[in-house]
């Protein structure tokens, strides 16, 4: 059987990470071809709905990439993205998708090598995790969850503690 080629959606902010990714190209840095980049103006623009939609439609991994803290083009969009990432992680766990499949990273417009390394590392991680099970086999089947019995009570408590 051929190697598992995961589908990874990447939300890249226009000012830092998208530019860093462009620079990786200019420098001819090689990384796995699994990332499907989506340009956004700011990591703070990435609604959790988009991340969830990606997973529910069957993405094997999602990366959100923004500017380093303190370097956001819009002052604090990345800190908002970080706050949302914490919630996204909890929700993923709750609905039975391994939160390791989601990742938030800071990449400056100069850090082409960091971009290439992180994408490589994340792709390998997802390859090890295998296909994400909510990926519809055909349109009729209901999504299957990786974790059949999430300890929902415990998770909800976590949510409360972290979000307040």
């Amino acid at each position, binding site marked *: 059987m051929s190697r598992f080629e995961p589908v990874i*959606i990447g939300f890249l902010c226009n000012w830092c990470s*998208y530019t860093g990714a462009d620079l990786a190209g200019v420098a001819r840095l090689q990384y796995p071809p699994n990332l499907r980049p989506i340009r*956004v103006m700011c990591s703070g623009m990435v609604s959790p709905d988009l991340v969830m*939609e990606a997973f529910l439609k069957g993405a094997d991994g999602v990366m959100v990439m923004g500017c380093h803290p303190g370097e956001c083009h819009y002052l604090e*969009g990345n800190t908002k993205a970080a706050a949302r990432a914490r919630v996204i992680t909890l929700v993923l766990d709750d609905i039975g998708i391994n939160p390791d499949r989601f990742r938030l990273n800071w990449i400056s417009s100069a850090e082409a090598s960091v971009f290439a390394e992180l994408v490589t590392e994340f792709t390998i991680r997802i390859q090890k995790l295998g296909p994400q099970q909510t*990926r519809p086999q055909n349109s009729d089947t209901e999504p299957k969850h990786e974790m059949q019995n999430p300890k929902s009570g415990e998770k909800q408590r976590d949510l409360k503690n972290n979000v307040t």
Partner: protein
Amino acid sequence: MGQATAAAAGASRLLIKKRGTQVKKKGFPKERIIVGKTPTVGVFVCSCGVNISGTVDVDKVVEYAAQLPDVAYVENNLFSCSVDAQESIIQKIIDFKLNRVVIAACTPRTHERMFQETLRNARLNGFMVEMANIRNQNSWVHQKDGISATRKAKDQVRMAVAKVAHNYPLRQDRIHVVKKTLIVGGGVVGMVSALTLAGLGIESILVEQSEILGGNTLKLETCFKGQRVAPMLEDLIKRVNKDKRIRVLTQANLVYVAGSVGNFQGHLQVRSKEAFIEFGAAIMATGAKEAIPSEYLYGKLSNVMTQLSFDENVLYKNEKTNTIKCVAFIQCVGSREPERPYCSRICCIHSVRAAITLKKANSKIKVYILYRDMRTYGEWEEHYKTARDLGVVFIRYTVDHKPKVTEIAGQLTVKIKDPLLDIEVKIKPDYLILSSGVVANDNKKLADNFKFTTNEDGFFTGAHPKLKPVDLSIAGLFLAGICNYPKPLDESIEQAKAAAHRVFILLSQNEIKSEAIKAFITDQCDGCALCIDVCPFHALSIQMPDKTKSENRVRVLIDPALCQGCGICAATCHKDGIMVHGFTKPQLMAQVRAAINGMEESC
């Protein structure tokens, strides 16, 4: 970039009389109305010579794109950005009545604007184009795996086609430009900026918080190249005061700022009075200051001094240098340590120059410079060599083994371990000079007023250190001098000219276009106000219903002048009540879904 921009200021000054005489105004044909028309997409796949086609099977991508929904026309170009290809794209848009275009080529960061113009030339709104970045983020980074790269290129094209189907025409508002500059800080940098602008025909308001112009330069005797500073400064002040295009306000502070690029309004406190000003751009030239040391008996003994006070009280008073026997300098005082990690760049040169001045005034004076790393960078290396030739003794120390300074009956003793001789050296200087470095002024209020940020050391940072060194992150705001980072006077002057030229480019236009990528309110907004607090630019407010018009809905109101289009509001709103043009929920969702759907068929 800074130097080049400063040189451009000089060239513009020479050309000012002829400026604009040979300009041809670019015009675009009237836009076709496409509202209500179903998406008809043209896909242009670029080979970029062999940059793309060397890895990606371009023919397969073309073939794949042709069968995607809404796609009416596909072609491959050798270089989509070439003049020929542009013509061809325009012709195809007309022939096939395309109302949306996907360019699968390089990065939108460099070429989107160009292709937007192509569309406008074909009577389409510029925002009906999307780019699929199959070069920088594909062929260049997957050179060894053509099959996967081709598959990824198909996915990228599919995602772009899916998004562009949701694109709609956007408008850019025209903003009238107030042809006046606010310059904050009346030091040499502020004055040079004002004079450069005056030479280019732009008026400025020079605001200085102290009683006199001159800033830090008032404390300098000579600049690094050795010329005396005072005559130059006098001349500068005279020219600034004489120029009708410069309004000087001393003892003035900026209290409040509103507006945005091209159209700022500010309140000034000038002595006891208030003044209202309007300006189209502003230059921050607030300088910085010498750090006050907290080590080596500073403040306890009058002969332990900082560099500037030594210059003022001893070095340039000839009668004093006649009687001195020994002087020691300690470099990096309080610098390059965890509390203040940066190098101030100018203190090494300053000390070396002071040492040369001492030696030249009286060669019998023993001069020691105790340093961690000597940084007489660039052409200042010459000074270091001269100092050594004149017999100045340089002794290195490490941050773990700093010199020890003691005092008995008024006599200073500096103990330091010389790493070359491997013995402890005792120096008994008449004066001990501490090179304490540069610290930022308290810029927080100014930064808050204009809504930009300082770095962790309190300095202003350019929008891009290499490409936009004198632009601040907010459009219409610029910086120059040591409020940016410590630098010698000549570099500061260069930045002053560069900042002036950046302002000139902006203010020489009668009107500018606003960005189209801004937030808008949808019918889903119920006025819950969740988005208001997260907006970093305070662009959102709540609008109460107008009872006289029998409205009953509370809605959020956007100030388009303040909105920067970041979309933090859009991601916060879970009702899709606020979105950003060009990056709406339907557009991004379409991309997400397209990235996953159809994976199999693109294999």
